[in-house]
């Protein structure tokens, strides 16, 4: 099953490779991984999307907790949560496709953030399924480039990951 794991980690050099090294060494799967400093610059927050049986997910959270640099770990998927990912797409936008592409972006509530005579860059946020649906809706012949940020997530309501 797919799990979104969030963790707070000391913002030190090498901290990211301790996490990624753990996943490769133990053969755990990583779908996406995002990391950036928090409002407290001494800590980073990392969101990992992984999948595995309950036993494997239990081991992953335990092994993450065991890393000396890791301050806190939660499995966001254990309770209601919100996931968002940013997608940037560059598309060919000429002739009839130019108007069509604009309409498609509106339908998905995406924004066009760069325009040239022949191309758009479109920005879209949402969960991974929404982003995938948008990309699938674009004519492959017009799709020039896509870039995704990886998922970041937060718990709903009172659930907080904080020191």
């Amino acid at each position, binding site marked *: 099953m797919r799990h979104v794991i969030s963790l707070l980690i*000391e913002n030190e050099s*090498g901290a990211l*490779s301790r996490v990624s090294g753990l996943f490769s060494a133990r053969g755990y799967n990583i779908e996406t991984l995002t990391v950036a400093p928090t409002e407290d610059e001494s800590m980073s927050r990392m969101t990992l999307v992984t999948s595995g049986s309950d036993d494997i997910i239990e081991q992953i959270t*335990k092994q993450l907790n065991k890393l000396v640099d890791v*301050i806190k770990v939660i499995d966001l998927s254990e309770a209601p949560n919100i996931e968002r990912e940013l997608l940037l797409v560059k598309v060919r936008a000429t002739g009839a496709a130019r108007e069509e592409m604009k309409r498609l972006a509106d339908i998905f509530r995406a924004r066009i953030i760069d325009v040239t005579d022949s191309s758009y860059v479109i920005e879209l946020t949402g969960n991974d399924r929404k982003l995938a649906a948008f990309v699938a809706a674009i004519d492959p012949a017009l799709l020039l480039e896509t870039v995704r940020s990886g998922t970041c997530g937060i718990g709903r309501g009172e659930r907080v990951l904080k020191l």
Partner: protein
Amino acid sequence: MELTGAEILIRCLQEEKVEYVFGYPGGAVLFLYDALFQQDDIRHVLVRHEQAAVHAADGFARSTGKVGVALVTSGPGATNAVTGIATAYYDSIPLVVISGQVATAFIGQDAFQEVDTVGVTRPCVKHNFLVRDVRDLAATLKKAFYLAASGRPGPVVVDIPKDVSMTPCEFEYPKDISMRSYNPVIRGHQGQIKKAVQLLLGARRPMIYAGGGVVLSEAAEELTRLARRLGAPVSATLMGLGGYPASDRQYLGMPGMHGTYEANMAMHYSDVLLAIGARFDDRVIGNVDHFASEERRIIHVDVDPASISKRVKVDIPIVGNVRDVLEQMLQQIESGPRAEQADTTVWWQRIEGWRDRKCLDYKPSGELIKPQFVIQKLWEVTGGEAIVASDVGQHQMWAAQYYRFDKPRRWLNSGGLGTMGVGLPYAMGAQLAHPDAPVACVTGEGSIQMNIQELSTCRQFRLPIKICLLNNRYLGMVRQWQQMFHGQRYSGSYMDSLPDFVKLAESYGHIGIRVEKPGDVEGALREAFTTRKNDLVFLDFQIDRSENVYPMVPGGKGLTEMILPSEDL
């Protein structure tokens, strides 16, 4: 007052009451060595290869419970140390390994003798640090010693660039330490302890499976009290030997691949299994599914939450320091309601039946020296009081099976990683820590040659180790597997062109004795441990080449599917 980084390092080691540093100098650590030279508190032990420096520090730590310290230079010094670091990591041994690094301005430039030591060691350390600023040095070393020794112990690497070691800085050693990201659990959850005790008292077929955690947390006494109170049989793993007195009636021997029949049967058929400081290693429980086929309740005590329910699902997990948890359990038994304790008479009858199979019996010989016989004689001659450092292979299993360890920290071996070549450096570390204790290195002709250069270190520091080489002119354990599972095709397992070990020992200034007849075994051992007490004696026992280690649970099989010696091929 300002001190250089090198002087700060020495002061920190003094603050940590470090007695020995095992090391090898080089360009990146010249300033550290210079500072070491100008003081008398810490003794430097010059090894002949960096791998041995780490193993010797590890042997020191295993035999004392203190943090072992090694010092190596950058690049090849650090990579040579990796095997030692990984060995300590797998057996949870507290070490601080200090490595030199090229100057900070050169890091990443592919400088001479540069290697990314923090990157290379990351997967096999508890934690590691690169100290980029001398102002962080003292606090980093404080953290390193704290991390190495607390929680589940392990090796910590501190990589110090050359310029950091020569830069002056105000020195202050932090008095105490707290890390928001690291808070190991010490005491067990009281509710879980209660449940565990209830289960144990109600068990008709209780079994205690004790691992290295008992030795690491100095819990041998508490374990013995609990086992006696419960009247439960005890099995100690390869890492846990000595954690429970081997000559005690309740002791069943080692479990696992080369464990005893009675220990494996009791592990399998128990109704309540108490696992203490053990991790259900594949060499201990054999086939996981087979192990799970019998219904039993499992209580698992471990300081590392990640060890619990990793390979085997447990019913009552208890995270905590083994000794603290055992104390809590004992208190719970004494203070709790006087629970009716289940009758274990029938269980013990079954165990005695298994014992009667006498699985460790072997055919004695008047012609050929049996390796088991050598270990039994070693036990007799030393009165069971020696510190035994073993290498890895058949001799390791025979030493574990036939030398009965009644006290902890007397059995030093590479259990998890299985590193050949640890024996002699382990013995060195142990002998330095215990100058008056008899120290034996049980080894094979394959293993001893992996760190044979340390005979020179032993000479320099006058270490009177007794090397007991069980020489069968084979890589015996490999040969055994090839005999059993690879159609007797002895690929690469034959040790050709062996040196004359007697002459070799003599060339290093030691005593060498070759023993070829069973009748000479005891005499040679007596000579080594009495008249030659103060010398290193290299005993080359020419043993029966065909002897195999039994009992044996073949790979992939269950604990009850052992091959016994009577079924020898």
